[in-house]
């Protein structure tokens, strides 16, 4: 086939794929909704949310996880458009800064007292299982939507989507998580996020390349 013949076929084709934005607007809320149902089916909201101390602890976690969710989803989304100026990766510093402040504050209050108990908490295993579990569907929904985009760095786009999904899943788990030490968050939330980032990167290479 000559190139001019191909061009003729291309110029006759008016079909435009459903945009990544359309798909994302449909699929991501749905995925988060299903993950929330899954959360309430398997775990309960944490008791004592009316108490200041408990509420504060939950809000501190959300101050880390929600910015991570936003940064990951937004950056992955931006990575779909070829030729845009470089990604504002500094957004990822927001959750890191939140966590750093919490760590300093915690150290100032308690020092290294009972460090190991604070680090491992009641149930670190539940954390590293639950967060990826609640993140899985949001990640799948993003990958499905992002296949319509044109990421020139598919692995990076997948990795960022994985981080965003982990932020969403972690925000759900934070509503249950009984372990409040920032060191717990640093170790286990981060590990979960890295697991999801790894999945996202791997899936991005296979699913987002075009």
């Amino acid at each position, binding site marked *: *086939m000559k190139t*001019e013949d*191909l061009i*003729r*076929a291309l110029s006759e084709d*008016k079909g435009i794929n459903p945009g*990544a934005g359309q798909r994302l607007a449909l699929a991501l809320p749905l995925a988060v909704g299903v993950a929330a149902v899954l959360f309430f089916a398997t775990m309960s909201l944490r008791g004592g949310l009316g108490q200041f101390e408990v509420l504060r602890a939950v809000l501190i976690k959300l101050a880390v996880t929600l910015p991570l969710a936003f940064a990951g989803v937004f950056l992955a989304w931006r990575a779909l458009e*070829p*030729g845009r100026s470089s990604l504002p990766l500094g957004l990822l510093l927001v959750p890191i800064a939140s966590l750093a402040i919490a760590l300093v504050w915690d150290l100032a209050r308690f020092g290294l007292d009972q460090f190991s108990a604070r680090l491992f908490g009641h149930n670190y295993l539940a954390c590293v299982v639950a967060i990826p579990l609640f993140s899985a569907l949001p990640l799948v929904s993003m990958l499905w939507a992002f296949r319509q985009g044109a990421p020139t760095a598919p692995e990076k786009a997948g990795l960022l989507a994985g981080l965003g999904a982990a932020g969403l899943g972690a925000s759900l788990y934070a509503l249950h998580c009984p372990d409040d030490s920032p060191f717990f968050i640093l170790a286990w939330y981060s590990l979960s996020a890295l697991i999801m980032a790894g999945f996202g990167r791997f899936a991005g290479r296979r699913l987002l390349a075009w």
Partner: protein
Amino acid sequence: MRAALAGNSAAYAALLGELARVLRAQVSRALARAGRGNAEVEDIVQEVLLAIHLKRDSWNPELPFSPWLNAVARYKLIDSLRRRSGGRDVAVEDLAEVLPAPEEKNDDRADATRLIARLDERPRAIVEAISLEGRSTGEVAAKLNMSEGAVRVALHRALKTLAKLYREEGQ
């Protein structure tokens, strides 16, 4: 590209033709640098054009066109060259660099023709009628006894399949 997105086929065909010329020169330079022959130039050009076409909605018309185009072309060129060099003997073509950017040659067309042959019967008939015989979607619809909408959908799907077949080649 703005005219094309607004549905102006002639403007779009002109744009793609222009792009094909620029790409052809770029691709042969890239192949020459890699010490490979010119045999694949047209295949790669077609693959890049197909990608530009299928991803054209990822360009935001409020932004300038050329950064988008350059990013897409670079991504597809690198992807295509890397894939094609894998597991294949590099053709020693010492003269490649002094050869002029080639006009299209007959023997460059093996790949696309082979890939089109792998389409199902009906999409293949549609693609061939439009590309080789230069028919419009309306004429093809009448000839194949389909609605024009169905022909358009089938054409779009066939082009997506073609892009996928390109990607799978040599993997």
